[in-house]
């Protein structure tokens, strides 16, 4: 392989998967957070390949996550728009991309984020998940805590 490889050639260093899901165009550096948001931890038995900081024509650098034998439901993946708004979900069957979806930030986000207000009731041992209402624009979302109503912008800093 030549010194100067393109993004696609680098991706090919990871074996093609037969069936499963490829999450492409993840904001560089966020692949691990994507797995975290999807609830995929070290105890999973799925085969997962992770590529970080590969060159991308559209994005400069990007991350890619490939999950074998599991087709992620677009609804369940939308939450990653929090940290990777340009991500594309590709469903792979028999080595081919059969479906491709963008991710859309849901209007309400439960769990995933922790309220920025230390005196918020959602940061205690009460039996509830955190909950945020998304306000503001698509490219500059603002998260308002459903409980204390405090607002914050930088989601990555508030991942649980």
């Amino acid at each position, binding site marked *: 392989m030549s010194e100067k490889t393109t993004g696609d050639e680098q991706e090919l260093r990871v074996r093609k998967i037969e069936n499963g899901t490829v999450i492409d165009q993840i904001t560089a550096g966020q692949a691990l957070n994507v797995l975290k948001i999807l609830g995929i931890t070290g105890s999973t038995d799925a085969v997962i390949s992770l590529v970080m900081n590969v060159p991308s024509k559209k994005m400069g650098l990007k991350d890619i996550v490939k999950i074998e034998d599991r087709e992620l439901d677009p609804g369940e993946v939308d939450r990653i728009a929090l940290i990777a708004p340009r991500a594309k979900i590709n469903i792979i069957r028999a080595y081919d991309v059969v479906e491709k979806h963008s991710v859309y930030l849901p209007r309400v986000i439960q769990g995933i984020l922790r*309220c920025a*207000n230390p*005196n*918020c*009731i*959602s940061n*205690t*041992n*009460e*039996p*509830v998940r955190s909950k945020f209402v998304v306000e503001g624009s698509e490219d500059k979302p603002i998260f308002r*805590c*459903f*409980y*204390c*109503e*405090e*607002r914050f912008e930088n989601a990555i800093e508030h991942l649980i």
Partner: protein
Amino acid sequence: MVFGKRHILSMRDFSREEIDLILDRALELEPYAKGKRSDRLKGKILANLFFEPSTRTRISFETAMKRLGGEVLNLDSTESSSIAKGETLADTIRVISAYADIIVLRHPKEGSARLASEFSSVPLINGGDGAGHHPTQTLLDLYTIKRESRLDGISIALVGDLKYGRTVHSLSIALSFYGASIKLVSPPGLGMSETMKSDLMDLGAEISEHDSIQDVIGDIDVLYVTRIQKERFPTLSEYNKVAGSYRIDKKLLESAKDDLIIMHPLPRVGEIDPEVDGTKHACYFKQAFYGVPVRMALLTLLLEGDGDE
């Protein structure tokens, strides 16, 4: 519009029509707040659940309920052993809502009332949640303004600690429905937060900031004074200096409009000179009384519905 079984958590949940409905109902109930007999809420039980000390809010709910013939259970964290043992708020509410027809909650954490409402099988009223909301204070403030001045298009100065004072946040949200021009007057470092200000501007409020009352006193219809707490200052002498320059006295009122009203959520600790009490501008004791008809209005709307069902 049906009020039954809803919760009263934050001014953000109200439309202007709903606020007007509550204020109209309060006006009807004023004679009962003054002592006229009523058995309207006979057989109903209100639970006052206070995790933080409060006198005015707790007692005025108690008075409102009793004057309408209802019963009151008072529970605070020293009296209730399960609360002291660290039971979750969720569990406490599940239990209390099986004993009472309506709950008033005061709690030190922001958002506690909304959380509690998710576990309550009866209407729950937020009686103050940390630095969060205190909607019944706001409703009685609006009622006072309506009774003693007018609600539409007023010019109001909010004076004092605008950073930590929850009263002014809820009130500003509600005033934005009535096209108020809001003048924020606070000592350096105690100004309203940028998020709160942008929040209010999103709601369409007209806001300006000032550092002295003298700058605005001649232009306003309502002077809303709040406490400046000693704890916010590094030294007592700095506190004294600031507190002194925000003190309302007769001299300051010389340049006020004739029909200016002065409000204060009370207790006051020196923000308003007692010499002001006898002037036609002083409204803060009436304001405290108006808490009773306003809370009566909420209790009847929540426990009986509004007749439209």
